[in-house]
């Protein structure tokens, strides 16, 4: 039971290390880095590796942005399995809706509550 906490810390940390290397060594902007990781997550799910990875690392695999690509692909593929080709489009947000809707709702609430501060 305790081991999942250790693996989630180490695996999550390592994914962030890959992101840091993309920014510092490959000189990608943060936006390019995140897009690359999302695409990687999506491809890993396509070849069926991401789900076992989640079983292994728990939040270490679901919290990094790679899981966003995984969730989109997973939803699309699950729907495609049931309804064929059209499911690729219709199932896309089936799994990942919570992240997007939370971002929109809390984005608006954040704007209502806060103003930016140029502090250091």
């Amino acid at each position, binding site marked *: 039971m305790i081991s999942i906490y250790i693996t989630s810390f180490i695996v999550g940390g390592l994914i962030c290390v890959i992101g840091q290397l993309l*920014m510092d060594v490959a000189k990608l902007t*943060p936006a390019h880095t995140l897009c690359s990781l999302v695409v990687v997550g999506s491809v890993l799910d396509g070849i069926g590796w991401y789900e076992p990875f989640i079983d292994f690392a728990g939040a270490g695999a679901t919290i990094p942005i790679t899981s966003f690509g995984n969730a989109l692909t997973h939803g699309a593929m699950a729907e495609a399995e049931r309804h064929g080709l059209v499911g690729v489009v219709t199932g896309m947000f089936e799994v990942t809706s919570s992240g997007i809707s939370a971002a929109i709702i809390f984005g608006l609430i954040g704007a209502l509550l*806060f103003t*930016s*501060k*140029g*502090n*250091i």
Partner: protein
Amino acid sequence: MVKRGVLTFHSKPSIYATGVTAGPLENKKSVFAQQFDKSYEDERCDLPTNEDGHKQLMYDAVLIALSKAKKQPEKIDFLLTGDLVNQMTPSNFTAHALAIPYIGLFSACATSVSSMITAALLADAKHANWIVAGSSSQHNAIERQFRYPVEYGSQKGATAQWTVTAAGAALIGQHTQGTPVIDCATVGKVVDMGMTDPLNMGSAMAPAASDTLMNHLTGHGKTVDDYDTIITGDLGSNGFKIFKALANENGLPHTKNFRDAGEEFYGNDPSFKAGASGSGCSAAVFFSDVYQKLLTGEYKRVLLLATGALLSPLSFQQGDTIPCIAHAIELTMEEVTAP
């Protein structure tokens, strides 16, 4: 003989007074805080938006400079200011509020000097008796336009600079004894050495500073030793280091009297990375620290060398390099001759 970009002001226009305003962070962290005329408790000067606060900074700086010389805005012939916000709306609104005939000037962070050069030209040609020159920047307004939203978390490297919240204004008029006077100036060319990193402006601007410095020295027949200080605008620690290396390469062996306003602004505090930047940075330092040292006689002759990176968010996203400019202006404090 006319030399390109090299100007001599035979009537030696005077700088009568200056006004410098700064934000709360600058008041707390800047080594020049004691020399600023006014600072605000609130980063937006208690106004609703960053841009409103930006306008207030410039407006107050102009009024402070005028009040020191006991002048009213109605007596001023020209207002020459600029900033970094799109279409320079803070300057435009300031000009409206002051109702002074106005030309907005954009030389990015070199506007402090380009506005003084233009003011000196107007005074020297006797087109005007009183001119206000100046520039300003406001951290939040500039960051959100050129980089990211203020609250967005992005890791800044060691070459990044912190846009200051500050404004500086100078009242320039016909020659008078006992005031710092404008001797000569050099208008810079745009220099582009192919740098592309908007978080490393110092590296992009250093060659422009070096180019204008050499043009000024050869154009006016001066050497580095003629100046008590040669102070650049906002190269930051990294750009300043490169600038000094370029000076050495150009046959200027020692650079002891070189200063950089951006590097000094926050006292080399590492949380500000390479130092300060923004068009308010050079204006605030030139019109406070340097001007006061001229008045007290600590400096007799100085060269202000303000640098500007002439990029836009659009140009660097389209993959363009960063074109840069530097303008130089030479100020002297004359000995008051006994009547």
